[in-house]
């Protein structure tokens, strides 16, 4: 039996099946539900590990299913797909552990974990999509399956937030659909190809192709939270913390950013996009988003909202890296896809810990939280420093490559944008760190419901995931030069895009 065609669907199914079973489980079957969740997550991780090993060996993993005449549903594990798949699979396991601890004794857990698994399925599908139609299918599925998680709390505020979320994402999806169908009527193919498949198109079509590019990027930019399409993200923060952590910091916004990477590299091809003068406007849009997101983050007192605006800003580093013509910037953008994920999920885990343990939701309530919860605050500090690009963290690596990429692409203004952003990051993260570590503790916390037991400041399950991701932030920074780092993988992808090198 040939396993190469089975692996990509199995990776998708490893979260789909547990999700479907969980839906029908009665609320009180906590044990079985946990087993299903963790088994699915571990199985996915193992399968992804297998594929990583295989792709490095030169295996080709691809599965096809006819969807329409002449267009198939394609799942393919190329290096770029694996970058996102690995990120999602690892973070899914951690977030599942976290969510089990976080949602303990709260209602509707079967529904929550069911949709949670479906979301991850959709994100994995987005990553593995081998053509634009498959991408679109999973991209829309991601919208549909996140909605129940946004409105999970069942309050009027949650309903309103869900409405905003849908208005943005479904409108974006519609533009993406239009762009996709239009592209298909022009070319008759939608298959992602290294180096793009449009450069052979007749010059008469170039104007259409420019419009299609705008449609696709705007459609994807909604999820990637490009300004001014970012309005849904801060609002969606009403969702429970694990949702904000995995979905809004990683899966959903990354699906948008990843889509931009795909469109630029595997649909248009970076050289062709440069020839059509499409990259500079994209870089400008990303730069505006980076600055605007950071500025807005400065003025938020709600911790999760500040983190949300920080996401708006940081995710656009990826689009910026992609828009810098040249391999160095590409590496910076791609590696940030992973680095931003692990750093931002740490921050959201920690925010969830503060809220769940002490009832802290606002930054003004965080005085002295570091003494009460030193481990959580340590993880928070590492991730925050990483966001600023401090040395020894993953953030420093991304930023160094981006700065170098901007210089190599002769876009000195981008360097200024990056430094300004670092400065702004420091301006909105350092006060938090100062408050937590150096301000005295208040007499009572807003709503403390998990008491400290010796050195265990909160529940195990809540503490472990942020510590792991914080450690990963350091490891990815310090060991960036080793062969198994995200950076090495980003270099492999870039080699293929620019030099068509095969391993």
């Amino acid at each position: 039996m040939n396993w190469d065609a089975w692996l990509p669907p199995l990776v998708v199914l490893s979260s789909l099946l547990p999700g479907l079973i969980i839906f029908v489980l009665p609320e009180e079957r906590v044990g079985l539900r946990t087993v299903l969740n963790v088994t699915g997550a571990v199985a996915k991780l193992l399968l992804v590990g297998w594929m990583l090993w295989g792709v490095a060996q030169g295996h080709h993993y691809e599965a096809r299913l006819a969807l329409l005449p002449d267009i198939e549903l394609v799942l393919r594990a190329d290096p770029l797909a694996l970058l996102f798949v690995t990120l999602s699979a690892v973070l899914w396991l951690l977030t599942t552990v976290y969510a089990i601890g976080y949602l303990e004794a709260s209602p509707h857990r079967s529904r929550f974990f069911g949709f949670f698994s479906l979301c991850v399925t959709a994100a994995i599908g987005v990553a593995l999509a081998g053509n634009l139609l498959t991408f679109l299918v999973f991209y829309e599925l991601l919208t549909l399956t996140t909605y129940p998680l946004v409105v999970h709390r069942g309050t009027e505020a949650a309903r309103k937030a869900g409405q905003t979320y849908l208005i943005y994402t479904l409108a974006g999806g519609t533009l993406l659909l239009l762009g996709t169908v239009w592209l298909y009527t022009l070319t008759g193919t939608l298959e992602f190809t290294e180096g793009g498949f449009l450069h052979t198109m007749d010059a008469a079509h170039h104007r259409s192709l420019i419009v299609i590019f705008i449609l696709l990027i705007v459609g994807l930019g909604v999820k990637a939270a490009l300004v001014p399409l970012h309005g849904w993200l801060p609002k969606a923060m009403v969702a429970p913390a694990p949702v904000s952590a995995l979905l809004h910091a990683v899966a959903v916004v990354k699906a948008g950013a990843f889509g931009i990477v795909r469109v630029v590299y595997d649909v248009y091809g970076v050289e062709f996009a440069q020839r059509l003068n499409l990259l500079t406007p994209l870089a400008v849009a990303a730069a505006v988003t980076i600055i605007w997101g950071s500025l807005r983050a400065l003025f938020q007192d709600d911790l999760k909202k500040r983190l949300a605006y920080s996401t708006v800003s940081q995710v656009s580093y990826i689009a910026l890296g992609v828009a810098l013509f040249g391999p160095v910037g590409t590496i910076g953008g791609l590696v940030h896809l992973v680095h931003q994920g692990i750093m931002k999920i740490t921050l959201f885990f920690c925010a969830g810990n503060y809220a769940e343990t002490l009832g802290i939701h606002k930054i003004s309530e965080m005085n002295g939280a570091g003494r009460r919860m030193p481990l959580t605050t340590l993880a928070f500090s590492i991730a925050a420093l990483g966001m600023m690009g401090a040395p020894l963290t993953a953030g420093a690596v991304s930023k160094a490559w981006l700065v170098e990429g901007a210089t190599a692409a002769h876009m000195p203004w981008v360097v200024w944008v990056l430094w300004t952003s670092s400065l702004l990051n420091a301006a909105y993260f350092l006060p938090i760190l100062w408050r937590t570590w150096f301000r005295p503790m208040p007499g009572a916390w807003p709503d403390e419901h998990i008491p400290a037991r010796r050195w265990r400041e909160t529940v195990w399950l809540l503490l472990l995931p942020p510590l792991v991701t914080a450690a990963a932030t350091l490891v990815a920074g310090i060991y960036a030069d080793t062969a198994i780092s995200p950076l090495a993988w980003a270099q492999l992808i870039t080699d293929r895009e620019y030099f068509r090198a095969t391993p």
Partner: protein
Amino acid sequence: MDIPWAVMLIVLPLAAGLMAFVWPRVAQTLVLCCSLAIALAVAGLALQLWHHGVFHHALGGWEAPLGIGLYADGLSLVLLTATALVGMGVSVYASAYFTLDDAHHFWPIWLFLLAALNALFLSADLFNLYVTLELMGLAAVALTALSGGRDALAGAVRYLFATLSGSLAYLLGVALLYHAFGSVDMATLAGRMTPVPAAWAALGLMSAGLLLKTALFPLHFWLPPAHASAPSPVSAVLSALVIKASFYILLRLWIMLFGPFAGDGVAALLGGMGTAAIVWGSVQALRQTRLKLLVAYSTVAQIGYLFLAFPLAAAAWNAAAVLVLSHALAKSAMFLAAGNLLHFGGHDRIADLDRVVQRLPLSAFAFALAGVSLMGLPPSGGFIGKWLLLEAALAQGRWDLAAVMLLGGLLAAAYVFKVLGHAFTQAAVTHEPTAVPARMEWAALLLACSAILLGFTATPLLSLLEIGAPFGGSGP
């Protein structure tokens, strides 16, 4: 294989209907067996068509122009499939829905309706189509009035007038054609038709009658009250199948007889009415505060999509056929789910749905899945239909039509998620719920799932549609 599946499709429900009338006590078992048998017969017919091409049968051995001919090609098959699937779902649902007394009235009429629908999709001549159309209309009106309430009777009377005037206009057109060209057989007529005034008058009368019965904007006025006030399983059938029957006749007539000489002006007019239907129906749906009215207006909007195919002509007929099937499945699921929510809460005020997602998860899920198909989001039959239609529009540079389709999708999302948003949220007033039988929940859910699964069967479906080239100008 010489089993006359097509004949069985008509005879079975007819015989079962008579028996259900005579022996009401076994009616329920009879209906369930019969709907299963119909599904099997459709599968048998599909196999037959797949291997031997179009099916042609002269009843009693009398050929046209004297006898009654039965004809089945890919298009008939798609409509028969819709009837069989929706028929099964509704039969199961109704077996738990009606009280014993109502059920005695429901079962025979329901079986007659099924027989009429099947016969209509198998008819080869214009007069036979009229007879089946009339039978179907009368059975549908009787079902609408079944609950006997004031709203139901008012809705049913309006519906009766609409359906009777529609059939009458159609019949006049048939008479004109017969007088002018001496035949009611479609294939014969196709060879003899010339653009004389009688043909134009027939075109006008028949189209107007059928459009009225299909409830295309602005002739939709009778639909929302009738579909919203009928018992839920009946609403499902009316929206899913009955309006599709008149659309089917119109499509056949257009492709075989009228399309070739009617020209672009008439096609553009139909497309314009479709556009107006999508916008008006969706906006009205969005404005409703009652669930069943919302679903009924959604039907008005979805009908519009079918008519966008007319200005796009040959490239879009496939899309229309896929949309007919996916809408039949999704809309019946949605009406059944809405019926469950109504049964559960004792009301269908959208704002007071009160966490039904948690309290009645299967039905809420069915509603959501059906909604996904109606919005045309992947993966679903609705998505495939919309993709094909969009592709046809863009390939011909019809940006206006493409814009309408996309706008319609967004509006559909707006009204579906309006319901779902409230279904997740705690309402101000809580109601004491009534338990919903499992059969009713599962019937809705399985129909909704089949609307989604249709999204994965587009390739075989489209090759089945090619049997007998119904869109290539040949036909009964």
